């Protein structure tokens, strides 16, 4: 990159990140725009300080990858709220897709001038802001504290300031978590138009063909509603192109996962952000693709040069269920571990779709890999296969107090993992938004890593 050379790979603090940003040439800052626009409003490579000033206080406590690609990624991701409002201003239709984590946006993004986003992902915002304001707003509407942090999405709908009021809400529900299904039900009163989509329950011992057919019918309803909304009759080729574009991202992410887990070429925090990009591309698929291509080039270069972001000798851990508080990932890496696998309940968004199939069938088939619609045993198998592949030494399950699936499957997953691989498992619940990791959780993580170390 002209005018810029990445420093030796590593993780940097917020202050170091800011210092680093001072060296980014103006030419690069001017280069990156979202929505393929070239005007000043669509720039997104801003100093981290800006997002902290905007309220993302937690950024001050995290550690970040020190590459330009990572800086760019964070700028792009943090800019999403602004981007969604710009989408509305520039005449795009804004579609809230909820609950299915990865499938419906493939369809929505096949329509011209439509932007899909996941209110679900607002669950990180209270932690990033170190604020309970969204939880309090959800509580006013009936969803109190003994519930998954995804309730923040309801608060965000009520506040009308985290994303524009969507033109359409597509709410997927079925064999999924109750907390979010409950959120979706209460969101209905904020939605000008809402389409409910069924998510079938996967029975791992039976063929999934009929359930895929059910999903195809559901996706046909999505297409029909989108056509009604946009007045655009989508062609098979447009949907195929949507699948191809999504696959492009999924393949890039698959390679990034490999480089991160095998070669430690990317840290856990950035990898989590990257994986969740597969859901909705942070509301700009083309630019997100460019962002992760950049990130992948950096990671490839590091792997080729034997450079690592975290210590090669770090303890190898698989992480189960995404931590709502990203500081946990920083904490665990600081404590001497690194991620060699994740089961973030978004398996469906990581699957490569079969582009030779009719598009809706391809999307349906990939959705059947969804983590939440099957058994805990299937999730455990995903964990153990990754653990085997990269020689994991332990498994961390970060749960959510009151989260319906966490309450039922945490112990089962631990049980299966221990039975199959005899690996130590640490399970804890992420606590409410705060400036720091709770002492108790910190101590438990430290003790857990000591156990892993002692087993070497």
């Amino acid at each position: 990159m002209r005018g810029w050379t990445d420093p030796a790979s590593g993780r940097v603090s917020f202050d170091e990140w800011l210092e680093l940003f001072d060296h980014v040439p103006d030419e690069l800052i001017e280069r990156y725009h979202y929505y393929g626009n070239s005007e000043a409003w669509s720039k997104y490579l801003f100093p981290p300080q800006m997002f902290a000033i905007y309220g993302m206080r937690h950024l001050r406590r995290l550690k970040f990858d020190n590459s330009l690609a990572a800086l760019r990624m964070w700028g792009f991701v943090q800019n999403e709220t602004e981007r969604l409002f710009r989408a509305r201003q520039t005449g795009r239709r804004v579609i809230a897709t909820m609950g299915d984590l990865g499938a419906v946006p493939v369809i929505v993004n096949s329509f011209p001038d439509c932007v899909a986003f996941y209110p679900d992902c607002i669950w990180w915002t209270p932690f990033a802001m170190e604020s309970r304001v969204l939880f309090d707003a959800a509580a006013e509407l009936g969803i109190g504290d003994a519930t998954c942090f995804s309730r923040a999405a309801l608060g965000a709908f009520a506040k009308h300031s985290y994303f524009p009021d969507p033109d359409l809400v597509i709410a997927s529900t079925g064999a999924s978590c109750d907390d979010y299904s409950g959120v979706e039900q209460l969101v209905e009163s904020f939605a000008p138009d809402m389409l409910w989509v069924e998510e079938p329950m996967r029975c791992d011992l039976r063929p999934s063909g009929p359930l895929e057919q059910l999903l195809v019918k559901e996706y046909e309803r999505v297409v029909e509603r989108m056509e009604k909304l946009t007045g655009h009759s989508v062609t098979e080729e447009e949907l195929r192109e949507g699948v191809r574009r999504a696959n492009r991202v999924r393949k890039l992410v698959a390679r990034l996962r490999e480089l991160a887990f095998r070669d430690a070429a990317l840290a856990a925090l950035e990898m989590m952000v990257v994986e969740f990009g597969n859901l909705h591309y942070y509301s700009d698929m083309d630019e997100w693709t460019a962002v992760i291509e950049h990130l992948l080039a950096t990671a490839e270069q590091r792997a080729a040069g034997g450079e690592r972001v975290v210590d090669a000798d770090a303890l190898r851990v698989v992480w189960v269920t995404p931590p709502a508080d990203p500081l946990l990932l920083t904490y665990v890496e600081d404590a001497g571990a690194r991620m060699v696998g994740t089961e973030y309940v978004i398996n469906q968004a990581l699957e490569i779709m079969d582009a030779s199939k009719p598009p809706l069938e391809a999307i349906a088939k990939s959705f059947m890999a969804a983590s939440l619609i099957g058994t805990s045993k299937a999730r455990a198998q995903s964990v153990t296969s990754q653990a085997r592949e990269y020689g994991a030494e332990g498994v961390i399950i970060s749960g959510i107090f009151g989260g319906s699936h966490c309450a039922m499957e945490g112990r089962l997953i631990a049980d299966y993992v221990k039975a199959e691989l005899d690996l130590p498992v640490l399970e804890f619940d992420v606590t409410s938004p705060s400036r720091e990791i709770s002492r108790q959780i910190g101590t438990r993580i430290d003790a857990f890593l000591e156990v892993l170390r002692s087993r070497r």
Partner: protein
Amino acid sequence: MELIPRATFEQIRRERVEELAAERQKGKSVVGYFCIYAPVEMVQAAAAVPVRLVRGGHAAEEAGERYLRADACSFCSACMGNFGLDPLFKQVDAVLAVNNCDMMRRLPESIERQFGIPVFQVYMPRTSEPLPHRVAEFRRQLDLLAAGLSKLTGVSVSDERLESEIAAFNRLRAMLLQASNTRHANSPLLSGRTMLDLAATAWLLGPVKAISLVEEVLRIIAARPRSDVHRPRLMLGGSMLAEDDRWLLDMVEEKADIVTDILCTGARWFAEDVPAVGAPLDRLAQFYVSRTCMHRRPNTDLYSHAQRMAREFRVEGLVYKTLLYCDPYAFEVKRLQRALGIPVLHLDTDYSTENREQIRTRVEAFVETL
């Protein structure tokens, strides 16, 4: 209070456990189920004995926490505990589980793993609009269930047997509905507690015995004098009320009349009949897919049902009891209160007994405000 002059519910339950043990000795299979979506007609048509498992209990809840986290719903924990503790649960040869809320959907996996009890898992769409492809999928699930049940018992689920069982369960539901509807009158003679006991007995005994019991109870109450005193007319709602939750009904009925409910362990179980026209499995599919529950999306039908019941039974207040961590019901309290426009007492509790006097105070205060 006795259900009928000669026996309490608990006595009937004990006797039934002995009967079931004897039937199993003769080769019968007992199939346990939890919710109103379980097609009991099919179980009986396969010559197995369906038994609804709706026991709570604090000891069972605590025992269940060995397998589930403390933030699992109290009923799920109690179920796990009861498989190790309760004599009725110990008679169960297989579990019929229809996915409804997320925790209940996941419960069978734990039952199977921890107790080695085989599970028939039936997928029911959560979305409530009965679109043809959704009903067709549930219909396919019923075929799979029929095959599984036949394998268990060696008896195939024939149309003829199904017709007979559909008719029997329709008669049972009609009788329970008739009993429940006696509460339309002022100062109802049938208490909410007795109604809960009748429903629980029906799940335990099956249509033939339960129908004669309901008839007997109706004869007995018809001979009772009706009080002139007006007491507040209340509706019950919320998470499933377990068969051993009758303490709450007794507590409420010291001060008010429970005239109806919107519970899955109450009037919702017998609110409708399986339709009369069509092939038996098609009718069952249509019937079960159309049943209301708070966890269905959207849950508009349950709201309409609740509004209709409140209007028809001239309800003055709602006692809404949720189990701790029962999200589908707990989230709806505020919305339901707005929709019904009547005072609501929300009790959110587990199966522990320590807070009962607090609940009594709240119930009394609530009734006084009416």
